[in-house]
């Protein structure tokens, strides 16, 4: 993936903002942007019916997308364009919709009217993510702050993708993750390797985990992989 140099950002986007707010309602947009700025980030407000809607997902790598009630009908598209490490938060007008958006896979939701302070706290926690907690399985530790996995204190010397793969699987114990899901969550959207790339990395990861821990990652035939401690 080519990151553009700072002095030559593309013509349409002059300020680098990595949060997108989807709404055509200026009042709602302003309120949400306020909460976003409280997390130290700058939001870009756009509506889902605008032509450049999808471009926002390809030209930027948003870390957070807020979908306001008037744009909830495009939530499915947002989830489809979702990339690794992108969080999605839905704003609801009624709590009746919460089952629906949770099923769609959003990371969090909030029901309007809401306190901007509450949303800011939720966003801050979400953006820090679960990445702060170390995952320990017997002698195996996965340490997010140093991007490292160790067995009995000895580093496994994982590459970034191997580390991400292990962390991702271990964060969802017992859950079967398809190759496509893993590819979408860990690799860049414009990565040209397909789902077999996941197999290649799993094989390497298992080799590094060694005989004692390699069977933590189970192959689910014709589906994908799961982590089972």
């Amino acid at each position, binding site marked *: *993936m*080519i*990151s*553009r*140099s*700072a*002095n*030559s*950002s*593309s013509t349409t986007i002059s300020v680098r903002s990595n949060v997108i707010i989807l709404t055509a309602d200026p009042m709602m947009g302003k309120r949400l942007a306020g909460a976003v700025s409280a997390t130290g980030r700058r939001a870009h407000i756009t509506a889902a019916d605008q032509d450049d809607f999808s471009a926002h997902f390809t030209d930027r*790598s948003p870390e957070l997308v807020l979908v306001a009630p008037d744009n909830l009908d495009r939530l499915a598209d947002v989830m489809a364009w979702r990339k690794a*490490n992108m969080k999605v938060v839905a704003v609801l007008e009624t709590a009746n919709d919460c089952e629906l958006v949770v099923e769609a896979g959003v990371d969090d939701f909030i029901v309007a009217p809401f306190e901007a302070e509450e949303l800011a706290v939720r966003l801050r926690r979400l953006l820090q993510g679960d990445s702060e907690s170390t995952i320990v399985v017997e002698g195996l530790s996965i340490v997010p702050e*140093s*991007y490292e996995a160790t067995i009995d204190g000895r580093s496994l010397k994982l*590459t*970034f*993708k191997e*580390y*991400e793969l292990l962390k991702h699987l271990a964060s969802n114990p017992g859950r079967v993750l398809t*190759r*496509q899901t893993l590819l979408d969550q860990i690799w860049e959207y*414009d990565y*040209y*390797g*397909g*789902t*077999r*790339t996941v197999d*290649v990395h799993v*094989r*390497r990861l298992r080799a590094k985990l060694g005989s004692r821990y390699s069977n933590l990652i189970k192959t689910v035939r*014709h589906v994908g992989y799961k982590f089972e401690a």
Partner: protein
Amino acid sequence: MKKDQDFVMKTVKDQNIKFIRFWFTDVLGFLKSFAITPAELETAFEEGMGFDGSSIEGFTRIEESDMIAMPDPNTFQILPWRPTEQGVARMFCDVTLPDGSPFAGDPRQVLRRNLARASKLGYTMYVGPELEYFYFEDSKGTEVLDHGGYFDLTPLDLATDHRRDTVFALEAMGIPVEYSHHEVAPSQHEIDLRYSDALAMADNVMTYRLAVKEIAQEHGVYATFMPKPIAGENGNGMHVHQSLFKGDKNAFYDANDETHLSTEGKSYIAGILKHAGEITAICNQWVNSYKRLVPGYEAPVYVCWSRRNRSALVRVPMYKPGKEQATRIELRSPDPSCNPYLAFSVMMAAGLEGIEQGYELPTEATDNIYDMTEAERQKAGIGSLPRDLHEAIELAEGSELLKKALGDHVHEYFIRNKKAEVLAYDLQVSQFELDHYLGSL
């Protein structure tokens, strides 16, 4: 800062890395490198590192001499043949112009463009190359280290240790090796890389060639990928196994077909066969490449496909039950001194053309093609690969397929450069001519 960049920053600090080499490849496939210190790394991720492209083969255009190398954090690896304390790491770079747009002369960008085209059609390309090379005492001659043969074990295979260390180095760099063994010719070896997506594999091939040479040098010998270093012995090939996948499904596989090849698989082969002549200049880019593509040394000469016949240009490995994921085709003409980014680009472009245009696969060549007469081959519709670089360039120059796959910049530069090479070769008077003509004419 993105997480993968942050990962690199942390690793550089934790592992006490002192230099980070930025790697990219020129049009002829030579690895280019410059080093930065950790202090520069953060800026390099944000803005790239500027360099003067005017002295890089195939990058030359005066108005475009300012170029930017953008490091790809996913390719970060510590170089295992450098000291472990205060070590050296590398990242492959994409070359851009100062405005951030991809530079048309960067082979990595050429391959990306072709992969994007495949991706639009829903395909991912996987490749597994088998690179052969020789160990010689030094780079001045072709004095072999051993007289071993195919699959020979020690003591005839004296280079076992060199090969083993190379495999360790590759594995340490995250490049999985499938097989390694002594090849047919004396002092000839082969290390086969496990399949990967085409972009990662092109990077791997560049790393592999350097690793083989670095480790040979450590052992006090010289390794070469020259296509045909010794007359009368097998040359160095790079057979390329390839397949297209749609999601988790192998697009080349069809359970109901006698050959177990799908329509797409067949058309892909047909595309490669039909355009074989045009892409040969890229897959076999040196004057010397054509000394390998002659009858009698296991290298392909004739344009045909087969399941059993290993002298065919395209071989389809026999299907093993339950191994539909492994259904693939093997192109046997390329040699390991090609530019892998461009070679993968053009073979895929030829195959995709076959799929898009729905080419019909010719009949399988079952007889030994070398035993057929010219007339018999013609009747069977079996053509020949270009006999020399001159013929290959002519076919490449007029090829729309090649122009589209390489882009005008690379196509034009490549043809110009290769014409100059042929001319320089033609101006020589060889030892053969002196030996055969001087005494009698």
